[in-house]
């Protein structure tokens, strides 16, 4: 209890200090306009989010719930204004969008197109039967429709970009020739690259034995994969730190005004 009281007094003192600093003009004054208030709200939420490092606490919990609420609504709004209106309504009944939302859509949509776009409307409607516990089965038709789309689109997409293109990129001459003739370094690189790809693929073999030449190649493949992971770990530290730097800039520059 005493600890909480001390903590509350320290927090209040800090807040008071900041407010005095703000009223003196060194920091954005939250009572001046909405933008300055926004900076304070943003700074508070940033600090609350970072407080998670100390462990779960009421400040973090508050931010968690605000963020989940705002973010889910944000995406729903985007789904409505970014997809349902311009993609569905504009193809199905643009007249409604034009008269209701005063939006600039062409109204002369042929009836075949309208009929085609009745399909997602129907499927979307079926999905909403999920809200009623007894009419749930129809919703799985929509899910089946979506899963069918995914399987149909992805099968070809992975065949194209993942399988054929990657093999095409791997089919190279293992002997590199530069202007001055045979290039040993580049040739070794090409051999290592091709060998690495093949060994990694052998590592992924599910029906291989625990020993033997395939397993040996697989172990080399695993080593290549570990190099890949180590490298991309070391490489991404910068990106993560950059985000923190950005946040600190916001706190120290935009809000506190000390740098």
């Amino acid at each position: 209890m005493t600890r909480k009281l001390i903590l509350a007094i320290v927090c209040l003192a800090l807040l008071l200090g900041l407010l005095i600093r703000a009223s003196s003009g060194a920091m954005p004054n939250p009572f001046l306009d909405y933008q300055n208030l926004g900076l304070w709200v943003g700074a508070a939420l940033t600090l609350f989010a970072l407080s998670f490092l100390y462990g779960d606490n009421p400040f973090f919990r508050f931010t968690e719930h605000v963020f989940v609420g705002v973010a889910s609504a944000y995406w729903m709004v985007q789904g409505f204004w970014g997809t349902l209106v311009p993609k569905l309504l504009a193809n199905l009944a643009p007249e409604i969008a034009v008269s209701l939302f005063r939006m600039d859509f062409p109204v002369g949509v042929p009836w075949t197109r309208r009929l085609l776009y009745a399909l997602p409307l129907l499927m979307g409607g079926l999905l909403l039967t999920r809200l009623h516990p007894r009419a749930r089965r129809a919703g799985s038709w929509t899910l089946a429709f979506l899963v069918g789309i995914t399987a149909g689109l992805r099968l070809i997409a992975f065949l194209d970009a993942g399988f054929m293109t990657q093999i095409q990129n791997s089919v190279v001459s293992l002997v590199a020739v530069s202007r001055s003739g045979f290039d040993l370094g580049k040739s070794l690189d090409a051999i290592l690259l091709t060998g690495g790809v093949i060994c990694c693929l052998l590592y992924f073999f599910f029906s291989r034995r625990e020993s033997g030449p395939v397993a040996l190649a697989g172990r080399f493949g695993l080593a290549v994969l570990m190099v890949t992971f180590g490298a991309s770990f070391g490489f991404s530290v910068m990106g993560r730190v950059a985000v923190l730097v950005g946040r600190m800039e916001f706190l120290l520059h935009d809000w506190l005004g000390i740098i």
Partner: protein
Amino acid sequence: MSLVAAVPRGIVLVVAIVLIVAMFVPPLEPLREEFSLFFNIIAAFAFVLGGASLIGRHARKIRRRASGYGYSVVCIGAFGITLAAGLLKLGNPTGIGGDVTARGSVFAWIVRYVFGPADSGLFALLAFFIASAAFRAFRVRNRESTIMLVTAFLLLLGRTFLGGLVTSWLPDRLEAFELPNVIPWIMSVPLKAGSRAILIGVAVGAIATSLRIILGIDRPYRGEGK
């Protein structure tokens, strides 16, 4: 298996086959485009279900006065305000037909000062997590972890000014082994090999999974069950 229960399997089969065939038949090709758009449209419908789940879960907590139900009030409040501000375009200077994130609208304010800071604040946690993960995971434990440790160490070193210094004592003859030259090599040879193999492997797995779904061996929707 009753006829009605077989409908979802039939839908998957027909839709998937049509979309695969469309890749090879030019008059059908626009369907691939339209159907991926259909996915997005139906996903937008599904937000209603998501919203119902979110509100339902928190409303139950409030009704039961479960511990920490105050946070649920905060969550539903934040959700409701943002949704109203966005759907009705409250305070939007461009009116109901304008851009939803137009400057000056309530929604834009929320995005800029609530959504943005909280999002990047949570993202910034990763800088701390990556440090503790590096401390804990990069140990000389077995062969695999040592290889990963050494590569990560070299990469980290190379991202600082130390990268050029630690190997500058090497004679010119061994220039290729200087750290600033080793890192691009790692990125363009082993890393390329590893990521290419992962790409091929994932493609094979994805193709097989697609086939399993088309054939009805995998059913991520409700199949014949009750």
